[in-house]
């Protein structure tokens, strides 16, 4: 067939044309077989060029289009949409990446970059010559969203989705909703406590009929696709019914012989194997921690309603999209890092926050009155040596706020802040100003010269070469050292592992593009938000949660989605049914069928994910993948091999 192909080569405003001679690329392909027109353009993605493409396609009846520009991850969909608007099937569009994989990768070698761009455009031409129009598969989308994680982000996203009219499953692994926020006392800037904030959200969620709340619930398997995820959730029983409450419950708890450190208070206090929620946690009922319960039966004797025979339940959930809001862990310092572990008077910021809340009249830690506190910033963040290169962004404001709270509550406290430069960005700057006015003392270390914590038998000493007072060693002997620890990805990566969520350089879950698709992941239908994506404060988490909610909603709202028609196809003449493809397929999309007198393989298109894993296992080469056929791949290889001189200069 004679093709009429249009080729557009993008300058990308210099991003490409500074290194690739785009005019030369155009000249090299304009006379290629099937090429009807070739143009260069300043911004292929710009409105003016898009309009021009539509007109070119319509006026000339183009039946194949190529844009050579940035990575297809950015703009493949943009140009497919352009083709569609012009009445050209979007699978007759082929994208050529000459920015990330050419102009930027070879900015050291302009001649080499230009040659490579030519070969890449030629291979795209080879592919588009063979491209067939395809119709996307349409399939129903379940109008429900499953949310993994019942902290502030998950709860707020649930409320948002519910109010937009979308059924929600809110799945929390621990026995209580509220996440990290329930552990914080007075919040900046609202002045309410974390518990009050969680309480309000939980109260609202209880009023929503389309919200299913699950605690003690762990997603143990996930299958399916965008529009139709199937989750199995294991729900651990609480063992303590609601009618076991009040004094009876208190006595039952008192009777429990098993005592454990309470993780809610970062082990500053203890709890029993049967225990109640803390004030900021919901639901406000008790639970038995079966991993430590000895089944001695002491609690049952007091509260016969307690039912240790309750069994875990497996619930099946069907959702069109999964929203992941699994949060963060506070960084745990290494043994000896700024004295951590060497003295029990060296604690972390989250521990300190709990300590403020747990004390009333004066600040007492391990039986000692605390008056002088050294705060050491950026512990576990901005590490020159370690893996955590990033700034955790919330900690400066958080510790300054905590220091002010401690001063307000206990009066006689002086804080010495050993900083690496304060980052109270935006309006938070006012809090820093307030702290300075309140007499807190700020010191700053040199980048390569962090403060040193000396742990002696009866005392602590923090030394710093301070920038702010002019290269002078300053030392303080505090009663307590607070390590201002940042956020790290949750150690429990079960949800991430289940869906194979990609991680960024900072090891947090990664979005597709920070600005274009900030809450989507490369796994279609899986949306991320909150601190599992990177450090965020509460406002920022809520903004991302609601953005995620509206994104999930737009996926399932219409009840129907489109799927790429990229599937495996069987050559019925060649296939001799040996079962190798059936064995290889991870999705059970292949089965045996009878055609006339012969047994052959058959693909179930609605299950096939187009991975191609069945292709190489076929002993008679009877399987092809749409858009990746032997002819297409081999003609691309032919074009890439080309006849151009492959000489480079260094």
């Amino acid at each position: 067939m004679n093709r009429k192909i249009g080729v557009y080569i993008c300058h990308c405003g210099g991003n490409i044309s500074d290194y690739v001679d785009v005019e030369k690329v155009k000249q090299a392909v304009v006379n290629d077989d099937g090429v009807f027109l070739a143009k260069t353009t300043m911004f292929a993605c710009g409105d003016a060029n898009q309009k021009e493409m539509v007109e070119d396609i319509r006026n000339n009846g183009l039946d194949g289009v190529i844009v050579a520009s940035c990575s297809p991850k950015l703009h493949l969909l943009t140009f497919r949409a352009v083709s569609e608007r012009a009445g050209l099937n979007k699978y007759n569009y082929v994208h050529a990446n000459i920015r990330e994989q050419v102009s930027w990768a070879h900015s050291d070698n302009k001649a080499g970059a230009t040659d490579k761009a030519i070969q890449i455009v030629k291979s795209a031409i080879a592919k588009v010559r063979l491209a067939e129009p395809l119709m996307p598969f349409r399939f129903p989308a379940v109008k429900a969203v499953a949310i993994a994680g019942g902290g502030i982000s998950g709860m707020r996203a649930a409320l948002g989705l519910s109010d937009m009219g979308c059924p929600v499953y809110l799945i929390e692994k621990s026995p209580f909703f509220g996440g990290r926020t329930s552990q914080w006392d007075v919040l900046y800037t609202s002045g309410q406590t974390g518990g009050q904030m969680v309480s309000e959200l939980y109260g609202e969620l209880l009023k929503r009929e389309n919200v299913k709340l699950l605690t003690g619930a762990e997603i143990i398997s996930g299958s399916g696709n965008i529009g139709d995820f199937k989750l199995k959730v294991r729900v651990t029983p609480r063992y303590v019914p609601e009618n076991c409450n009040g004094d009876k419950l208190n006595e039952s708890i008192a009777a429990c012989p098993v005592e454990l450190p309470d993780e809610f208070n970062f082990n500053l206090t203890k709890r029993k194997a049967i225990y109640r929620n803390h004030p900021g946690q919901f639901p406000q009922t008790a639970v038995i921690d079966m991993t430590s319960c000895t089944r001695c039966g002491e609690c049952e004797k007091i509260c016969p309603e307690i039912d240790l025979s309750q069994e875990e339940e497996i619930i099946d959930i069907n959702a069109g999209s999964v929203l992941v809001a699994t949060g963060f862990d506070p960084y745990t310092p290494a043994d000896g890092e700024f004295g951590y572990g060497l003295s029990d008077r060296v604690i972390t910021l989250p521990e300190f926050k709990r300590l403020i809340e747990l004390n009333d009249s004066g600040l007492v830690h391990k039986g000692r009155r605390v008056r002088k506190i050294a705060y050491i910033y950026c512990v576990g963040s901005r590490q020159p040596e370690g893996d955590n290169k990033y700034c955790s962004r919330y900690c400066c404001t958080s510790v300054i706020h905590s220091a002010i709270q401690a001063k307000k509550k206990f009066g006689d406290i002086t804080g010495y802040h050993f900083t690496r430069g304060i980052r109270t960005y935006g309006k938070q700057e006012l809090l820093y100003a307030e702290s300075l006015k309140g007499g807190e003392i700020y010191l700053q270390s040199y980048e390569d010269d962090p403060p040193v914590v000396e742990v002696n038998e009866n005392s602590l000493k923090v030394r710093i070469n301070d920038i702010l007072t002019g290269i002078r060693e300053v030392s303080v002997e505090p009663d307590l050292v607070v390590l201002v620890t940042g956020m790290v990805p949750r150690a429990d990566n079960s949800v991430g592992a289940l869906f194979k969520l990609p991680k960024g350089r900072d090891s947090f879950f990664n979005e597709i593009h920070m600005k274009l698709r900030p809450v989507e992941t490369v796994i279609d239908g899986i949306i991320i938000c909150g601190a599992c994506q990177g450090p965020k404060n509460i406002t920022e988490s809520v903004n991302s949660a609601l953005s995620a909610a509206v994104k999930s909603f737009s996926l399932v709202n219409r009840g129907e989605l489109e799927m790429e028609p990229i599937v495996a196809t069987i050559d019925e003449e060649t296939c001799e049914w040996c079962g190798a493809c059936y064995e290889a397929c991870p999705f059970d999309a292949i089965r045996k069928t009878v055609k006339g007198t012969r047994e052959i393989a058959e693909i179930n298109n609605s299950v096939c994910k187009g991975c191609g894993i069945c292709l190489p296992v076929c002993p008679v080469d009877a399987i092809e993948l749409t858009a990746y056929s032997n002819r297409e791949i081999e003609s691309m290889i032919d074009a890439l091999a080309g006849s151009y001189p492959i000489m480079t200069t260094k």
Partner: protein
Amino acid sequence: MPGPATKSARILVFSTEKISDPAIDMAGLLKLHYPPTVYTIAVPCSAGIKPRWILHAYEKGFDGVFIAADGTDCSYGDSCTDRTGRLVYQTHELMKQKNIEPARLRMAAICSICSESFVKQIKSFNEYLLRNSIN
């Protein structure tokens, strides 16, 4: 700056659309340079590469073929690494039959942020191919 012309090996990379191709993109973003005679064809999954495509590349004059495999991150299942390994083995056997040095086919798992590793691997493969001056 013009300097002495040096040859670099022609390498065909099979990358994967969701995992290793983003890493190769990021290598560009970070301006990590590698020879411009390295070309990429992206496929959905590295376990779906046909040996005949690889052999075709040698026939057409490529010095080396590099499979930037999904590794354990593959979104199509755990069998990916094994299967990619198997097809590489199978291709090595076919290469021996055709008197093509098996070392001209390499595979490494390239995760979605393994840009530096990709560039390191490709540079070392390029050096190997040039040193053994296959063509």
